[in-house]
């Protein structure tokens, strides 16, 4: 979970323009889930690429500039990590506007994730 979080924050900062802003919120959803949402104002992801960004073999280079490099396997690993703890990851994005990644963390595993991270 900690790795998944690190990966998504890394992407958000990496794809933000210089002196840009990343907005993070941690919210309790009902009594069993904590949502962590990470919003950047970077280049966004093209609609036809969105569904593939969590795939193992997708490098998602197309929408990136040369200076930013690729997402690589980070998001695929992040998605797998979230699924392993019974959570999920989703993305809302618009080309040219930015992306919001939301990590749905079940609280029963929140403690485990924190212990693992320490």
């Amino acid at each position, binding site marked *: 979970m900690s790795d998944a*979080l690190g990966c998504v*924050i890394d992407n958000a*900062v990496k794809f933000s323009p*210089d002196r840009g*802003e990343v907005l*993070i919120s941690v919210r309790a959803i009902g009594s069993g889930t904590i949502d962590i949402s990470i919003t950047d104002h970077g280049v966004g992801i093209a609609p036809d690429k969105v569904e593939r960004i969590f795939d193992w073999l997708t490098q998602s280079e197309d929408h990136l500039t040369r200076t930013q490099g690729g997402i690589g396997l980070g998001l695929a690993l992040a998605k797998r990590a979230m699924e392993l703890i019974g959570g999920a990851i989703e993305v809302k994005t618009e080309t040219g506007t930015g992306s919001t990644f939301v990590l749905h963390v079940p609280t029963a595993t929140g403690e485990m994730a924190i212990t693992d*991270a320490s």
Partner: protein
Amino acid sequence: MPSMGGLDLLRQLHVKKHLYEAIVMTGHESLQDARNAMELGAVSYVGKPVKHEELMRHVRAALEQVAVNERELAYRENLEREVRARTKELEETLRLTEFQSRRLDMRGLVADRVNEVLRRYPDKAVRVTGIE
């Protein structure tokens, strides 16, 4: 009694588990029978013939015992309800406290990851907000 003995009936009634009380009247008194009757929950053991007044005394004692049983049962049920309600309240409070605590821990975890990432991109001067 024609079909079964009084003590057998007592065994089947499980007197102690119910609100009613039993008075055993017998034409063949014996110490052993009296002891058995009491052990099976009878409130009185009376030899026949029995005078009306004496029988009424046993009946009144039995009715008093029934009233005590009813009060005890009501008290116990009320207590159990109260304990269940308080336990539920406590569990809910504990759950909320743990949840809030995890949420705070989660913010700490997010802050740690943010700091790591920002150290990786010192030149971008990206500002991260929302978890101050």
